[in-house]
């Protein structure tokens, strides 16, 4: 396509702006995915996804087997939840979360000596399913965006009827420093990824699939290329490493040169964008009628003795993982997710959820480097303007935020900010820009609600 060619000549096959933080993937990039043992008790949050919480369908004292549904979807904007291990439901109670607020959770006491075999589900021929049936089947797996956003996958697969999707983009950029889950999944299980891609293409009626990854993961691209279908409908594209390439909008620009209009879905320009881990799970679970019960988590950083990529049962508390891997400190500064968009957690009791792809453990001596530095006034250097992948003006937004002129920030396109953190990263004055913008967005939501 001419536009594709033009795009790669003009942008070098990537998106404009962005940053190059130290990658630090060497801790775990060559560590194969290994299965992690079950903890004595799992904490299964009922709200691990964007949308309405799941409705529990079990009672305390009830026995469940690995893979069995324990909560059902509450409407379309919700997903069910499955038991990651065989055991007894102890209680349904509040539990701490990665983001902070406590939410209801099912506490599952794992039967000691439980096998890892999944007893639930049965093989089925997915070739005979209609697109509608596939989308329903995907909701039944409980799948959400495993890249971190945790948006229900079946909702993403149901674009407005006036949109025609011609290309499925598979996001294998994993642009967050330190994390290597998508890298290992692409390298070790390329077949599942390609199968998942084909299922997505069929469900959304798209003739083309593009798996995009960055040039620091060339081995993964080669592994996928070996198992691509012969008809050429699915291709792999390697783009230059840059943060935040894994953002939906940046990826669309980098892979096919399309710009998703402000406030619109990718489907408005004919795209469906899915994460590698999500697609891998579609390819793995759908043919077996199973649900999401575990995910690959990169446990990494200089503070942990045995960094690696581990297949962890959902609901496993942080404490269990870290103690097994040789971290005996407190939750002083632990990051769930990547260092650019992840959250610091307040407690070691926080469980692994569907959206959590990494745990970053700094050493005590690194903490001062991570903690916010001394803030200087904005000196107008323009580094944030040059970094913002959305082409906003973080400097101007930041000045308005300090003056609490939250509504004026809307004129500077505050709502287009997707909080990648590039501006805060580059700011030589160490102004917490993106942190200001989060508050400003919340203030605008409140102002809007008050106006109603």
């Amino acid at each position: 396509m001419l536009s594709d060619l033009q795009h790669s000549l003009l942008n070098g096959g990537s998106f404009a702006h962005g940053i190059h933080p130290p990658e630090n993937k060497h801790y775990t990039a060559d560590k194969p995915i290994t299965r992690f043992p079950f903890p004595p008790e799992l904490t299964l949050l009922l709200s691990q996804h964007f949308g309405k919480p799941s409705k529990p369908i079990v009672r305390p004292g009830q026995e469940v087997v690995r893979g069995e549904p324990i909560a059902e979807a509450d409407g379309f904007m919700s997903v069910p939840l499955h038991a990651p291990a065989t055991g007894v439901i102890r209680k349904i109670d509040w539990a701490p979360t990665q983001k902070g607020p406590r939410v209801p959770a099912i506490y599952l006491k794992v039967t000691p000596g439980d096998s890892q075999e999944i007893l639930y589900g049965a093989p089925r021929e997915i070739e005979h399913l209609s697109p509608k049936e596939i989308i329903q089947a995907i909701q039944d797996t409980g799948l959400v965006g495993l890249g971190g956003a945790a948006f229900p996958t079946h909702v993403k697969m149901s674009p407005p009827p006036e949109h025609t999707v011609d290309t499925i983009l598979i996001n294998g950029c994993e642009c967050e420093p330190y994390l290597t889950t998508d890298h290992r999944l692409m390298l070790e299980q390329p077949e599942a990824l390609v199968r998942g891609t084909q299922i997505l293409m069929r469900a959304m009626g798209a003739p083309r699939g593009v798996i995009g990854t960055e040039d620091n993961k060339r081995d993964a691209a080669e592994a996928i290329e070996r198992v691509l279908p012969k008809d050429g409908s699915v291709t792999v594209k390697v783009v230059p490493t840059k943060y935040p390439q894994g953002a939906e909008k940046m990826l669309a620009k980098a892979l096919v040169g399309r710009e998703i209009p402000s406030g619109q879905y990718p489907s408005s320009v004919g795209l469906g964008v899915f994460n590698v881990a999500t697609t891998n799970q579609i390819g793995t679970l759908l043919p077996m009628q199973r649900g999401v019960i575990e995910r690959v988590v990169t446990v990494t950083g200089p503070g942990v003795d045995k960094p690696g990529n581990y297949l962890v049962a959902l609901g496993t508390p942080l404490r269990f993982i870290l103690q097994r891997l040789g971290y005996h400190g407190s939750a002083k500064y632990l990051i769930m997710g990547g260092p650019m968009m992840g959250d610091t957690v307040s407690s070691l009791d926080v469980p692994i959820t569907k959206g959590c792809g990494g745990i970053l453990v700094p050493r005590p001596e690194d903490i001062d480097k991570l903690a916010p530095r001394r803030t200087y006034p904005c000196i107008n250097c323009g580094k944030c303007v040059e970094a913002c992948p959305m082409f906003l003006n973080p400097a101007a937004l930041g000045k308005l935020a300090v003056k609490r002129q939250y509504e004026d920030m809307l004129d500077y396109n505050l709502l287009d900010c997707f909080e990648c953190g590039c501006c805060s990263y580059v700011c030589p004055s160490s102004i917490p820009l993106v942190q200001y913008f989060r508050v400003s967005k919340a203030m605008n939501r409140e102002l809007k609600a008050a106006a109603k």
Partner: protein
Amino acid sequence: MSASSDKPVQLHTSPHLHQPLTVEKIMRHVVYAMLPICVWSVYQFGLSVLALLIVCTTVCIGTEHLICRWSGKPSTVNDWSAAITGILLALILPPGFPIWMAVVSAVFGMAVGKMFWGGLGFNVMNPALVGRAFAQAAFTVPMTTWVPSMAPGRFTQFIPSTWTPPLMVPRPITQWLEQVAVDGFTGATPLALMKYNQESTETLALLTGTITGSAGETSALLILLGGLYLIARKMMDWRIPVSILGSAFILSTIFYWVDPAVYPSPLFTLFAGGLMLGAVFMASDMVGSPETAKGAWIYGTLIGVLTVIIRLFGGLNEGVMYAILLGNAASPLISKMTQPRKYGAIKKREAKA
């Protein structure tokens, strides 16, 4: 940081990484980049310039510190920006400028040009230039009294006007000049020679600084090297010096083509006077320049064009200072007009359709 590391749990929102560059580091490296120019100007003009440099820097730092204290805020002098202002001011004053006048100018530039606005980041104009503009208006004669470079005995004695008693007008230095100056020294800078006598100076002399002028504006070569260092370390927006020098070069080329007898050659325009120092170290001051790339081009071009227009058609033979001050004043407007087009913005025509 020790206070925060004592907390049992630290909760911060992302991102948790920072690039290593800080304001303090940028400012420190600007000072480093100016040091060779300082050394060279001391070598050229001797003790008087050394005294100017020390006094201006100390007074600027002291003024900032005192104003911070009086306004009950923590002192901000350790961000190095006051030192930059002090050094720059010393470099754009005539070498024999009386010390007491330099002190007044430095206090004025720092207080009115920077601290009254709220300190670093809030000032509209470059404080060193505000100080110089004040000096130009208040002390016109000393601001246009030039001394020869490489004067014999410059390392053992001060230029007589340097130690003028406070509130006194310096005595004429003609007697001293007769002792030290080579024959034919007119006390005019290359730009003044050009403007009033249509007399050009060799480019090589301008490059290396064996001419007269303000302490620091005489060696274009060292200024360029300092600028290149800062650009290489990504501590300066290269677009600003490039657009200032580029636009000044193009405009003066046009005039030179029209009438080479009246108008100076483009190379002369680039290397004479304060254009080089202004383009590299003053206009590029991030605080007073637009933060957008397109804005930087417009801002630089404006300064370059204004400089040439003032030099050729204004009453003054040097226009860089006012050109940059005007550019600083226009910077917020330029910023506002050159906001980036956001990703995914729907084109107006399409949106209406």
